[in-house]
């Protein structure tokens, strides 16, 4: 009973509306895959198609090598945890977990054994005789997971299971789910719109937008090498800074009103539109001295008024602070013109209206062409 999953050119349309368009990817047995994307991107629909609650308009879905397009939901050997948990409100926790087993005529002792085991694993032992309404959000969540576990499925499907929990509980449940995955070793497919959940839990992330796959890969691969503007902007928080400009050849991009940036981009034809992207933590703050701004080497790059005087080749930009977020361990500076966010290690004394100069290291700059696709970079 392999828990591998593969989708081949899968489509789904509701009437004239295409919700899923030509989705193909493979998930290995035992993996933890997260579907992530903005709301309305079709990730939940895709999950429902996999579990059999929605029909497939075209293409093939195979579980463990067998095409399951026409296999009813219950026979696919999957278990789903719903966003609303979908616990049966009139049944106790025990009955909730046992319901699926009763339906396949599992012997009573076996049901009791499996429920007890799942309850122990999820620390629900003392709540078995309670009704779901008498449980907290986190406990209900665990019952929903327990109901999935007792069925010993090939694949677990999670549909935004943590979205109803408060922030603190969510972090805790995230760790619990990762632990559970390690212990059970079963394939898990998880849908979320929260890229943090995706980054922290997944071993493979599938980024979806408007019904098609934008990129599939390990979390850090997506983070380090996003294949297009959407993925670059979606993965990472705070999001990557983008500046639109025009390619001026040899990897350089001229951003009107800001300046010219050297990048390591190859294959970027001169004259075309291009967007550069850089993550907040890669932007370096230059030393500021009494309103005058100089880079680390002491070269003056901006006059007292904050106007840029020189940045050619240096990728320096100056601007004024439009907002500061102090998180204690690190700080975010939001600059106005150019509109970029800068991450600073530790705490900062800068405040609203201060003039600062920042440096954008060429090696950290992602370049996207006119179609929004990432452009190849030479190694620094």
């Amino acid at each position, binding site marked *: 009973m392999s828990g591998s999953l593969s989708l081949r050119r899968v489509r789904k349309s509701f009437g004239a509306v295409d919700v899923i368009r030509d989705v193909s990817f493979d998930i290995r047995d035992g993996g933890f895959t997260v579907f992530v994307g903005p709301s309305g991107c079709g990730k939940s629909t895709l999950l429902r198609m996999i*579990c059999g*609650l929605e029909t497939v308009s075209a293409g093939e879905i195979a579980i463990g090598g067998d095409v399951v397009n026409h296999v*009813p*939901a*219950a026979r696919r050997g*999957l*278990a*789903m945890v*719903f*966003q*609303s948990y*979908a*616990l*049966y*409100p*009139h049944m106790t926790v025990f009955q909730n977990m046992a*319901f*699926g087993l009763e*339906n*396949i005529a599992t012997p009573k002792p076996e049901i009791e054994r499996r429920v007890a085991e799942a309850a122990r694993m999820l620390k629900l032992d003392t709540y078995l005789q309670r009704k779901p309404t008498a449980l907290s959000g986190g406990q209900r969540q665990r019952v929903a997971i327990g*109901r999935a576990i007792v*069925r010993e499925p090939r694949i677990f499907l999670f549909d935004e299971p943590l979205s109803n929990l408060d922030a603190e509980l969510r972090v805790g449940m995230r760790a619990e789910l990762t632990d559970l995955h390690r212990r059970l070793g079963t394939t898990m497919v998880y849908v979320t719109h929260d890229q943090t959940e995706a980054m922290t839990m997944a071993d493979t992330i599938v980024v979806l937008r408007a019904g098609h796959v934008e990129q599939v890969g390990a979390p850090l691969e997506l983070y380090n090498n996003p294949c297009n503007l959407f993925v670059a902007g979606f993965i990472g928080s705070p999001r990557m800074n983008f500046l639109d400009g025009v390619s001026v050849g040899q990897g350089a991009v001229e951003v009107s009103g800001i300046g010219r940036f050297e990048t390591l981009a190859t294959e970027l034809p001169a004259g075309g539109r291009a967007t550069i992207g850089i993550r907040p933590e890669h932007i370096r703050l230059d030393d500021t001295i009494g309103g005058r701004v100089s880079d680390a080497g002491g070269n003056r790059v901006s006059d007292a008024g904050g106007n840029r005087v020189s940045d050619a080749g240096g990728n320096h930009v100056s601007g004024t602070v439009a907002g500061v977020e102090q998180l204690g361990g690190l700080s975010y500076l939001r600059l106005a013109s150019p509109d970029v966010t800068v991450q600073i290690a530790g705490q900062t004394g800068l405040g609203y209206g201060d003039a600062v100069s920042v440096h954008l290291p060429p090696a950290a700059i992602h370049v996207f062409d006119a179609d929004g696709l990432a452009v190849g970079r030479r190694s620094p």
Partner: protein
Amino acid sequence: MAPSVLTAQRGRYAWDWTDWAAHLYLLAGVVLMFGPIAWLGLSSLKSETGLNLFPPTFLPYEQATVDAGERGKLRLFKVTEGDHQGETLAELRRIGRQAQLIDPAHPETIIRRPGAAREPVMQVRAAVENYSGLFSQFNFLRYFWNSGFITVVATLLTLLVNSMAAFGLSKYRFQGREPVFLLMLATLMIPPTIVLVPNYLIATELGLTNSLWGVIWPAVATPTGVFLLRQYMLTLPDELIEAARMDNASEWRIYWRIILPLSAPALAVLAIFSVMWRWNEFLWPMVVLSRSEVYTLPLALNSFQGELTTQWNYLLAMTVVTLVPITVIFAILQKHITQGIASAGVK
């Protein structure tokens, strides 16, 4: 709870005129609602003569009697004028304008008095024989059983059939779902009297006349019931059904184990309605049932009302007995009505 309601007032220290007005208004409501019921209850305890008294009395009055050995029960009178004025005597017999009376203490002396010079001695007495007579003189238990059987069986069938229809119309998406539903609701606009004859012809064809099932079957599926249950079921989250489907539950099992228990408040409302409809139903049973052994209580009540005489005492007693079960059921289930209606609206 009740005392604070009774003494609730608007004025902080004294009774405001609005308090008086409110309480008077409420009292009028109480009298209006419970007056007829109370009068019915008291009248059902009156003897036949008590019922015919004029002016009518509220309490069950009856002429007092005395047991005079071999002379049987004698009615007591109070002499209003003449020799024995003020004494209470028992009437032995009446001949023309003369009444022969005896003193119960000295039964051997017969006193003759003009009939006009005396008035009957009245006393309050509950004529429970009205009730016991129902059982001894009439086939009351038979009617009660018929009514009970029809009410219980028809209500169970109504709940089952209507909830299945409501489940289908609320939780399955199929072509023609809305038209079917609207068509069903449209039948509410047809007055029952219009389909009475066609229904009767069908019942005759099916051999359902003079059978309790002939009363039960035709009204088992009610548009009101389907509507009520469907609207409630629409509020049940689809995810529960999907979860059950993932849990290998068959569609029947989803209906039986998930949908039905969760629809309990709406089912309770429908159950109350159905019980009231069935228990009080008159026109259709009268058409279908013509033999007295299959009569329901309302039909039996009707049969007390003869062309020439009406046995009011039995009629009233039977009316009370007919009212009691429905009142008890309503009292038990009434909190579900508000609950069902409230929870159908919220959420």
